[in-house]
Structures are given as C-alpha cells and as structure tokens.
C-alpha cells in the first residue's frame, strides 16, 4: 500500500479514491423476488425532465405494464403499472430526497394477480429500424438506470444528429456497497448483450465497449462468455477506482477521449449507457415489456439480509425492509443510492423510483459523523478530484460568501462525486458547500431572470401607455381637425346656400 502510493505519486495521474467496497457478501447472494406490496406509489417525476402526465382515473383497473402516465415534452418518460390492480389515489407523497418535500404520485392497490397486459412481441427485433428502436424504448419508459435517470431514447436518438462511433456500456459500478449491476451481469449477461446490440443499431455506432471494474471477476467472465460470438461488443476490465463510473472518466479510460466541458459525450462520438439500461432495452424491445421494476441492492450493517432484490417501482422502502427481514440493530442513516453520491432519506415511507440502485441502512459506526475542523491545505482533495479542480479553494470562497469566486475556479465542472470530502482529514463537508453554492447561484439566476422579465413587462407596459396616450392625443387632434374641416365645410355650404338664397 505504502510503496504503491510512492510509485503512483511518480506517475502523476492519481485521481479518485479507493474506498472499501463493502460489496460482498451482498453481491454473492442470488437475486430474490419479493412479495408484492399492497400499495405502490409511482412518482410522476422519477426521471430527468418534465414529470409524466397521469392518463388514468382513480378507481380505474389497470393491468401490469399498462400506461398510467404519459411523457410530456421532449425530455420525459412515461410510467407503467408495475402490477395489476386499481388506481386508488393521485396525490402527494414524500419524495425520496433529503429535503422530505412531497411530489405527485399515482397510488396503485395491487390485486395480487400480477397479470400482464397482452403484449405483442416483434418477430425479429434486430431487424427494426433505428428510429423504431428508439421509439419503443421511449414508449417503455426506459431511463438511465445507473442513477442519472435521463430518458434513454433521447440519448439513442443522438446517433442520428451526430456521428457516434463507440457505444460505451458502464458496468463499472464504482460506488461502494452496490452490487446490482454486478449481479445483473452475472445472471443476465445474454440479455444485456442483446440490449447492447439493439442500442448499437439505434445509435449507428460500430462498436460497443463494456467497462467493468476489475473487482468483479465473475461479471467479467459472464459477460465475456455471452459476448464471445458478437464481434462488435468487447468487454474491457477497468481498474477499480472511484469514480470510474462517471461518464467523463469512463470515456477517457475506454475511448481515450476527453469531453470538452461545455459539450456532451455525443460531441466526441460516444454515448454512455448503463448495463441495467441495456437490460431494460432488451426487455422493452424483445419482450415488449415496459420498465416496471429493477434490480437493486439492500446493504449496510443495519440491513438484516443484505443482497440484491427485484423490486417493482413504487414499493415503499418500509415495505422493502419488512420483506427483507427488518432491521438488524439500530439504523443511524438511510441512504438511497451509494454512499458516495446517494441521498439521505427523510424517513422510510418513500417509494422506490427508477433511479434507485440501492437502499443502504447504515449503522452508527458506518454513519459516523465528525465535526469539521479548519482546512490545513493538505491538498488531498486536489489530488483526489477526478475533474482537476481545487476543492479547498472553492470551499474557502464559498465560506467567505463568494460563490462567484468558486465559479471562476470551476464550480460548474464539479460532478459532486464526493472524493474530496471522502479524503478530507479535517472532515469538511465539501460537497455540501458545493451543493449550497450551486443552489445559491441557481436561485440567484432565477431571481435575475424574474427581475429581467418584470423589467421587460414594465417596459412594455410603459411603452403601451405611452403609445396609448400618444394615440389619444393624435386621435383628439384628428377629431378636432375633422371637426374643424366639417365646420368649415358647413360654413362654406351655408355661405353657398346663403349665396343661392340671396
């Protein structure tokens, strides 16, 4: 360890951190199905973009896979019923977010039959046109299952606007504790490869590279086996290093390309999709099954049975915990997602959403919080930052109430991966500082926009009033002139008449 550090410090490129991964034993447990919860709550906004629009009424009977909320807008995703049952309510429920704020959701009472909608399967899915694949993926509500939840069809469609040569499939799963992608690759490699082939057709890319961290030898073996006869798909083991699964880092590692900070991956000819997304694409196209459930990890010292579970969307975390054997001791912190980037849950009555890769029930020792101390400028955060930022300088600016200074230092490029706070010997919550400043700035931008809009409106009103006043004056003048002309005319007529009479 010590001498590896010595060696690596000579190499220079030393971004990221190596957290203890805590993936086993959960990763080695076979996947389990859980009983259906009596009531599911489907958040209308569980993807990036505009929330879905409900297309069902309360009391309506739905079958599994039936559309219950449609996408609205260009970037959005539809929702489907995860089981058969009756729509019991459309209202607010606490969103799975640290704020504990509510969000709109559709509540569905399961009838216990779990009956699928009769769905027609395409005869030869690989003969479909790129456009058709993208449309089917969109209709199935598939979003990025790595956690970003960006509607996948939008990314697939990028292939038609820019030339994509490489499809990068993210199987790195660099977050500690999580093993759902690992499990999926071990158990469903053939389906994932099928999904990758469909995505290759949809994007027009010539080759796909699947990046898997080398701490998952079983997954690498399974995926190699499944892709052995598919020439376009190559499995590439990547070093286990957090945040290897961040798209910019993975693109650099696998394609050797650096994405310009104001551009997207597609601009350098690549698109990144998660292995879970590839699996969902396979289901959407080959089985014509919409995305209604996902594989997710239950882990942490306070979880009774750590492992991976197939969970329908909308299942409450409290139901999930009950189905998996309850709590093991006292839970000190509940996290949705991984420990490096996940969000704290306000309480257990929040639903699982499409982006839920795991629920962590951390005990007191795992969730130990330390009181922040002064920055000693050790530069650990600078070495750890995968984006090449200066976290210590940015946080100093933010602490002194100068978020613009932090922006000048590259705050906008921060991916909130948490490496800086993870290595900080002074336990400074750097990511919290950055979130705070980003929030502050976007609030200010909104205010600015609003002020600008108000100013424009006021200006327009003033112009209108001025114009109206001007028009009034002009109209009055015109009327006066008309009246004068008319008077003149009558006077002339009168004199004429007088003349005639005279």
């Amino acid at each position, binding site marked *: 360890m010590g001498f590896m550090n010595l060696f690596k410090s000579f190499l220079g490129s030393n971004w990221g951190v190596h*957290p203890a991964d805590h993936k086993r034993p959960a990763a080695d447990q076979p996947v389990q199905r859980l009983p259906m919860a009596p009531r599911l709550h489907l958040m209308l906004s569980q993807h990036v973009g505009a929330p879905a629009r409900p297309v069902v009424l309360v009391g309506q009977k739905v079958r599994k896979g039936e559309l219950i909320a449609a996408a609205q807008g260009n970037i959005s995703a539809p929702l489907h019923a995860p089981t058969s049952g009756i729509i019991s309510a459309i209202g607010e429920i606490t969103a799975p977010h640290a704020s504990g704020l509510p969000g709109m959701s559709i509540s569905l009472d399961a009838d216990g039959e779990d009956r699928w909608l009769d769905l027609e399967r395409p005869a030869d899915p690989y003969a479909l046109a790129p456009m058709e694949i993208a449309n089917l993926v969109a209709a199935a509500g598939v979003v990025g299952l790595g956690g970003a939840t960006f509607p996948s069809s939008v990314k697939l469609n990028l292939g038609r606007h820019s030339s994509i040569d490489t499809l990068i499939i993210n199987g790195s799963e660099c977050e500690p504790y999580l093993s759902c992608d690992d499990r999926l690759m071990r158990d469903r490699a053939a389906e994932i490869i099928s999904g990758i082939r469909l995505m290759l057709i949809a994007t027009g890319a010539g080759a796909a590279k699947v990046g898997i961290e080398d701490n998952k030898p079983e997954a690498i073996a399974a995926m190699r086996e499944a892709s052995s006869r598919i020439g376009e798909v190559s499995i590439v083991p990547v070093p286990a290093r957090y945040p290897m699964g961040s798209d910019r880092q993975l693109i650099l590692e696998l394609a050797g390309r650096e994405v310009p900070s104001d*551009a997207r991956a597609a601009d350098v000819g690549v698109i990144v999709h998660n292995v879970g997304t590839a699996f969902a694409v396979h289901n959407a196209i080959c089985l014509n099954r919409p995305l209604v459930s996902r594989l997710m990890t239950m882990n942490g010292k306070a979880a009774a049975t750590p492992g991976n579970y197939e969970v329908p969307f909308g299942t409450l975390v409290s139901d999930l915990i009950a189905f998996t054997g309850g709590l093991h001791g006292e839970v000190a912190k509940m996290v949705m997602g991984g420990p490096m*980037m996940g969000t704290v849950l306000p309480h257990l009555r929040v639903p699982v959403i499409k982006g839920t890769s795991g629920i962590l029930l951390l005990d007191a020792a795992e969730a130990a919080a330390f009181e922040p101390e002064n920055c*000693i400028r050790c530069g*650990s955060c600078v070495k750890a930052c995968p*984006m090449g930022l200066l976290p210590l300088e940015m946080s100093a600016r933010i602490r002194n109430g100068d978020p613009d200074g932090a922006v000048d230092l590259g705050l906008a*490029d921060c991916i909130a991966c948490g490496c800086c706070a*993870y290595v900080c*010997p002074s336990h400074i919550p750097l990511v919290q500082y950055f979130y705070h400043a980003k929030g502050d700035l976007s609030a200010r931008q909104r205010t600015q926009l609003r002020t600008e809009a108000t100013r424009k409106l006021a200006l327009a009103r003033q112009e209108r009033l001025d114009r109206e006043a001007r028009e009034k004056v002009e109209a009055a003048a015109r009327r006066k002139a008309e009246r004068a002309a008319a008077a003149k005319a009558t006077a002339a007529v009168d004199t004429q008449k007088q003349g005639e009479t005279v």
Partner: protein
Amino acid sequence: MNATSLTAQPIASPHAHGGNSVSRTMFRVQIALVPATLYGFWLFGWPSFFLWLLTILSCLGFEALALKMMGITRIRRTLLDGSALLTGWLLAMTLPPWAPWWVAVVGGFIAIVVGKQVFGGVGQNVFNPAMVARVALLVSFPVPLTQWVYPLPLTSLAAPDFIDGLRIFLTSLPQPDAMASASLLGYTKTELSRGIDLLQSLAGEHAPVLSWIGARSGSFGESASLLILGGGLYMLACGIITWHTPVAVLAGIAIPAAIGHAVDPTHYLSVSAHILSGAVMLGAFFIATDYVTSPNTTTGQIIFGIGIGFLTWVIRTWGGYPEGMAFAVLLMNALTPVIDRFIKPRILGRDRKGKPLDIPESKGA
C-alpha cells in the same frame, strides 16, 4: 448567505469517509521525526532533551493561552490535533542543541502566537511558524543562536550528566571552549571572509560521510542527514507528502552548487557539502512540505521547492548569514499565494486557461 446550511450536520453525500484525520497526519509526521530526534539526544546529551521538551511545552502552552484569550472553547481538542506539538518539535530541531531555556520559551511564543494564532490558527498562517520563530530568534539573539557544540555522545566521559545538563540549560553560562565548535557553513564563511579559500580551510576537515551519520556540529535535529532522509521516505510511503517539494528543494540547491563548484572550487562549496550541511535535509522533507504554507498543486510545489533551494544557496554563498534555509522558506511562503494564483491544475474538459476544449471537427452536430 444562509449560514446554517454550512454549519449544520451535513446531509449531503458522501456518507463514507476515508478515515484520515488531521491528528493522524500530524502523528505520522512526528513518527518520522523520532529517529533523528533520538539520535540528537544521544549526540548532544541532556541539554538538548530539555530544550526539546520545553520548546514543545511552551508551544502547547501558548496555543492554549491564545485559544483561551480568543474565547475558543475546544482548547483540548485543538491541542490534541498535534499541530502545535509538531511546530514546537520542528522548532527544537532547528535550534542549537545547548541553547538556554528562554530561547525555547521565546521561540514557542513567536511560533504560536505571532506565527500562527495571529493569522487565525491552524491552516490560516501565511508563514511557517517554526521558521518565523527560528528567524526571529536568530535576528534578535544572534549569539546564543550560533553557539554550536561538538557532538558529545551520551556515553562519552565529557558528556554532561542529568544535573550538569540542567545547569547548562537553565543558566546559559558561556560554554567551555573545548566543547564549542563552528558548523561547517559558519566556519567556511568566516575563513572566506578572512581571505582563506575553501581548498585550504577545508583541507582534511570535511568528509561527507560524517554528515550522513551526524558527527558534526549543528542544530539539534539536523545533523544526521541519513535519519532525516529516512523519516522523509517514510512520509513519502505513507502518502503524507509527495516527492515534488523535497526533490525540487534538493535540485534547487544542488544545481547551482554544482555549477559554482565546477567553476571555482576555491569559493563555492561542493554539492555534497551544501546538501548535507545545515538544514537542507530537514527543510526539504519537513519544512518545505508544510501543507499550510506551500502551494497546493504539484507544479506549484516544484516551483516553490526550487525557489527555496536556490535562495538557500544564494544566501549561503553571498549573504551575511552562513545558513539561509529559514530565510528562503519564509520568502517562498510569501510567494505561495502568488504561485497558487497562477498555477492551477487543468480542469478535465478544459485547457490550461480554463476555456472548454474544442469539439472535434469530424464529430458533433
């Protein structure tokens, strides 16, 4: 600005921590100092032990006092982070081993109160506190700060015992001439000023091997280059420091020394004499690598290190003082904010100037 969201218990990710802490880092640096320190005790006897102890105690005492006067409640925790202890330790390493007790007390006061707490405590100081104290002492009390003794290992007969050591430490009587000795740098400077060139003054005197094992007069903790180098390598292996600063410091002094010595060996000391004398080893590994007062990028650290090395050589060669490490460190400390302002790491996806990289022509919409 909403202050509570920055001070309240953080809820933002990450929910895991690597386990490093300020006290652990400071502790490891202290471990790295132990061999050279123990060897210093053996070489210079009881007076050096008392000096070391009192310097540390006075640093801790002044830290506690300063915190109390500022109304800070977590005194105990701050003392336990080990930073004041380390400052005192480093300061003691740079003092003449038989310096009297008040040097330790005054040094501790200058280091902690003037060098650190006035700026706002740990992490806020511009200058290395130990070096501030070292330079202030040297400028204010040149005589006791340049009185070196020849190493008298504890086992030798002439070495002062516990009581004698205490007497030397507390009374600051003039040292017996037999024990007094000049450091190599001081000796050559004096001889050069008398018109005796290096080839004559050093004839048979200087052997680098003696510096490696520390058999030379000099500051308490600086004489055994080998042990300091070992401590430095330990810190490198632990990842507490990187190679950039120490290598840059050594290169900064070695390159001009090599050129000078090649041009005129009668006036310029050799590379080994420079690197193995005085505070160069300690400075390169323990002083210049101080987190707070050095630049935070590797490129910046290389510039900083070369600056320290070069200035040290310049002061030693042409300056009024035989040793220039402390001055060089302070000068470069002053430049650290400037270096940090101009040297920034390249952000991924941007060029060195911060402009986004160009989108490749063949791709894109």
